[in-house]
């Protein structure tokens, strides 16, 4: 697998600042907003967007963490059961505008699971989706409201988002391509 960097730490920072501004613009302010990060890498992204919003709106938006493991549609296909982590939402989401935050939008199945999970936790007035990377190849009718970068990929490639909060290394987004001989196997 060979890797190519497509976003560095500074690119990621700028993309998140733009997304934060778009969120505030689209919602005409941030009063009714709740940011919900999808575990794991959506959580630090949601927290960074929250910090940026606080900078220019002078107000802190609540941030929740959503674990969608129990809502996956592929549990039995995945071998050992993935670890279930905690969901914690700061308050009742009924009537609020929820912005779901994730690192990569791909098949749309994670978002489908997140929507199901949110429906069990309340009835938001509106749900929007913010992602750092949209790599295409949707298998469900899902689209993002806020996108950091659209990245055309093939299905055989991997997109890895690395964030210092989770991975302990400088932020970056890389595309991994299978090597030639690996492809022929």
């Amino acid at each position, binding site marked *: 697998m060979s890797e190519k960097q497509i976003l560095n730490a500074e690119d990621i920072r700028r993309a998140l600042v733009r997304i934060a501004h778009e969120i505030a613009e689209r919602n005409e302010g941030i009063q009714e907003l709740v940011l919900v990060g999808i*575990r*794991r*890498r*959506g959580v630090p992204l949601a927290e960074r967007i929250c910090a940026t919003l606080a900078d220019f709106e002078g107000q802190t938006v609540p941030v929740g963490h959503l*674990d969608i*493991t*129990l*809502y*996956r549609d*592929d*549990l*039995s*296909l*995945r*071998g*050992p*059961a*993935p*670890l*279930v*982590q*905690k*969901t*914690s939402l700061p308050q009742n989401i009924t009537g609020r505008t929820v912005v779901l935050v994730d*690192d*990569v939008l*791909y*098949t749309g*199945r*994670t978002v489908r699971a997140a929507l*199901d*999970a949110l429906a*069990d*936790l309340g009835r938001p007035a509106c749900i929007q989706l913010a992602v750092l990377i949209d790599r295409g190849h949707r298998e469900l009718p899902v689209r993002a409201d806020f996108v950091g970068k659209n990245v055309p990929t093939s*299905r*055989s490639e*991997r*997109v890895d*988002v690395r964030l210092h909060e*989770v991975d302990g290394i400088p932020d970056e987004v890389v595309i991994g391509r*299978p090597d030639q001989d*690996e*492809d022929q196997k």
Partner: protein
Amino acid sequence: MPHQTHTSHPPSPTARRRHVCDLDDFTREEIEEVLETADSMKEILSREIKQVPTLRGTTVINMFFEESTRTRISFELAARALSATVVNFTGRGSSVEKGESLIDTVRTIQALGANILVLRHSQAGVPYLVSHHFKGSVINAGDGCHAHPTQALLDLFTIQQKFDRIERLNVVIVGDILHSRVARSNLWGLTKMEANVTLCAPPTLLGPLPFWHASWPNVRLSSNLDECLDGADVVMALRLQKERQQAGLLPSLREYSRFFALTSERLAATSAHTLVMHPGPMNEGVEITPEVATSPQSVIEEQVTNGVAVRMALLYRLAGE
């Protein structure tokens, strides 16, 4: 290259298991993973809608050949919270009374489409036997005097929630140790988590030291409860089955109570952080007084609540291919 699903979740580091017969084949790592998962499950139970769709299409059969309130209801609630289909089966009123053998009953239940069999039986070893004749998973919900792994896991979970650790805690288990499946499974769990365990009972209900040391070399034995309570972080009282007195193992229940019951006076001698636990059902006035059972140090009701979360965690781990 297989189709890559985008996920940022680490897979479970411990291999998938098929059956839960006792805790002897659990590693410390796997126990910690179950407790961590149980913590996430507990959050679900605190929601207004206490249900997630995870085990839709999975059939769980509760097969109880011995009476039970909390364990059976707890398993049923756990399975329902994960959206499994649950069927309860008791020996009474079934074809067992027409003479159907246990194995035939299990085969029948398998043919009816069961995926997970939760089994309680008065004979030790029955879950192991059944696991050889059942293609799905078997969970031992208590077999004779042998093991009760889900009770031990919920006890570990309750201790962990209170102290944030289990390692190095002083845990005293007092009561009919010799006949207790709860004590035995807890011994596996507590020693794997590196707690210091003391077993306390009258000599007739304690058994010889070599017997215990064969499996748990570091466990201590005592017949003096007051001594044991000094420095104890957790005291777990076991139910005294009244039949033991008829069997000649005890002079009288009153004498047993005088030396081994958890009373307010005894509790006053412990430190304020000492937890009082009991797996239930209690004989109030025999091994524990009602005041102690409802005192602020008692986590007996929390044990019951935590039982649902721990059983959800186990059902989740066993489900799937």
